[in-house]
């Protein structure tokens, strides 16, 4: 897609339709809250539209959008911290049943998910983001570096640090 097309609203709408699911899921993985993720998604696309002239190389659209999305997620985390809202998402039973005390597997999964979410909530926005991009989306380090606007070496270091921070947080949550 050319730069001229990218600046065209119809083309932008098409970009929104093709990317919104990925942006929402990235936001949801980082933020862990559907409303926050929806807000971050919306902020991402509005900001991208408002600043579309800043995109000089249309080939870098996805990296550029990813960077805006990360900033939107960080802003959302800040707002959540300011308002003191803390939410935990628990897995829903696959068959729609309420968790039963006798269903040990489900209870364990719920406990694991709860511990993971609590541990993940301890991490900074950047640590969360780098873990999502690497472990969930399996992005090449070059893409992650582009999204962060940082050198690849920095990203590798951050990945190790974020992983260690998560393990440390999980250890604390499992006590």
């Amino acid at each position, binding site marked *: 897609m050319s730069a001229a097309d990218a600046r065209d609203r119809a083309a*932008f*709408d098409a970009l*929104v339709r093709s990317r*919104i*699911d990925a942006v929402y*899921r*990235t936001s*949801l*993985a980082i933020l*862990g809250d*559907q*409303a926050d993720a*929806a*807000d971050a*998604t*919306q902020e991402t696309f*509005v*900001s991208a*539209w*408002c*600043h579309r*002239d800043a995109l000089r190389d249309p080939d870098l659209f996805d990296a*550029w959008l990813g*960077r*805006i999305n*990360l*900033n939107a997620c*960080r*802003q959302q*985390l800040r707002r*959540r*911290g*300011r*308002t*003191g809202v*803390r939410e935990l*998402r628990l897995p829903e039973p696959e068959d729609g049943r309420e968790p039963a005390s006798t269903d040990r597997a489900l209870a364990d999964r719920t406990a*694991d*998910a709860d511990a993971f979410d*609590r541990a*993940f*909530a*301890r*991490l*900074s*926005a950047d640590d969360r983001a780098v*873990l*999502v991009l690497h*472990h*969930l989306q399996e992005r090449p*380090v070059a893409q992650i570096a582009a999204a962060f*606007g940082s050198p690849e*070496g920095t990203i*590798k270091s951050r990945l190790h*640090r974020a*992983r*260690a*921070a998560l*393990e440390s947080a999980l250890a*604390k949550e499992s006590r």
Partner: protein
Amino acid sequence: MNGQLPPIDSEIRDQLARRSAGRMPESLLADVLTAVDSAPARRGGDGWPRLIWPVPRLAVAGMGIALVAILAVAIAFPAVRTGPAAPPASYPADRALTTAELAAVMAGPALATNTALVAAVTIDARNDVCPMNRYPTVGVVDGMASQVCVMGATLAAQIQVPKATGTFAFRYLGPGYLGLLGEITPASVKPAFRVADNWPGSGTFLVVGWLGADPYPCPTYLATLGGDPLDPDGQDQCESNWLADDPSAAQPASSAGGVLPPVGGKIVQAGGMRVIDAVPNDVPVLGTYVVRGGRVLAKVANLSLPAPSPEAATPSPTAGPSAAPPETPVAEPSGVLSPAPLGLLGPGNRPLTEAEFAAVWAADPAHLAGRIAIVKGPVPTGFECSPVGAADAAGPSPGCRIAVLDGQIAADGHYWAIQVGSNGKLAIVGEVTVFQAGYVFTLDQALESSGNSGAGLRVVDAWLDWEPSLACDMPGGDPLCQAGAMWSRLTSAPLAQPNADAATQLDVQLGAYQIFGSKDLEARPIHGLYLVQSGGSSATILARLEVAAP
């Protein structure tokens, strides 16, 4: 170790997949496209603004919408200067406070926090005398009877000249502390513009007029928040705010999905200041408003001005252009201002006792203005202190201050964060959280405690550090970029250490490193005890604590 990428961890992947699973909200695509519709168009000359407000949760887009609306209304209604604002011919509509008046206000009883005021003064750009506050230091006001610090909302508020003389809008933050809203661009005749005037294209200015609001139906996603008092960014929740010279002027019929102000009025963003200044939205309110970038930042309070103190007596200028330089400062600070102490603790990192606190107060009461001390209850009330060098410290002395507890009574045996006022009053910031091992938490302990017990005040032993934020190739001025230059963090270990991979980190407020650490970014990290107001995944540092000198 860091040369290789860590392998994909299937357990982490599964948990993250779970977090991101589920259906995307059905309305999200439509919401996004509608919000993009509402985003500012950069092609000018579209005439009346077509405002669509389908999704009120988007602060960034809302700001842009208001800006476009104001510009479009300005185009549609060619401005006609209609002369000076209507009476009353007094502060704040027609003039700013003089230096003497501001000195009297600051020396008098404490104002309500966040009271907005306008004063023509000189600010001495000193960032070495007020290092302890929630905001970066801008400087001190010349000509005050005792030190009055000026704080900025962000690091960008720094003054670039040694002394800045002009008319400034402030919020009263506490005894001895003002927060800078901005330097006022005056109108040609009086400090304040009318709504119908041509407003400045940039900068901060005053507008005398009626602030009103028109509600419109919309889903509600957010509780109403004010934002930072020095940079209110609260949303206009399901209402369109406007300023008008005549609120009874005919109002054009609302367009489909849009709202227009009264004829001659201008649409503004005011959701944040309405919360902070408690301005109701059910009736138009006449006032003098501080405006910047299409957003109303504050409503200037109608102060009952005290008479200037004798030592600060200077002929008060009568009403006139506020662009004129203020009168000669009435009281130059005596000698060189020494660095103010940070938040205070007792020896061995224990809370100050009542006697120790009284002694610290006596040593330099004016210097402690605005500082926070950690005190073990009972908090002293009514004790008399003595000036430095008094031979008989036990007896009352001329000029001694009486400390009066202002607020709830601090219970005996509990630990309290107390803010010292320059007016002889002490204010309780809050009770400090304790745990079985004491009251000084490691960062891990603090996070665990806040996770279990919720938000609260905690003294945390940690490193204050920062990291550069994401690079941003968007134009300057974008809110996302402004907030992204530097991210301050409390960490359980210096991030630069080889074994720092497992360091626990906690995001703290923007610029916290430069507020509580050092102006020198390369001097990081700063190890210390920090008084932290925690909540969720981020926190606010209220003070960096140091042991009070005996």
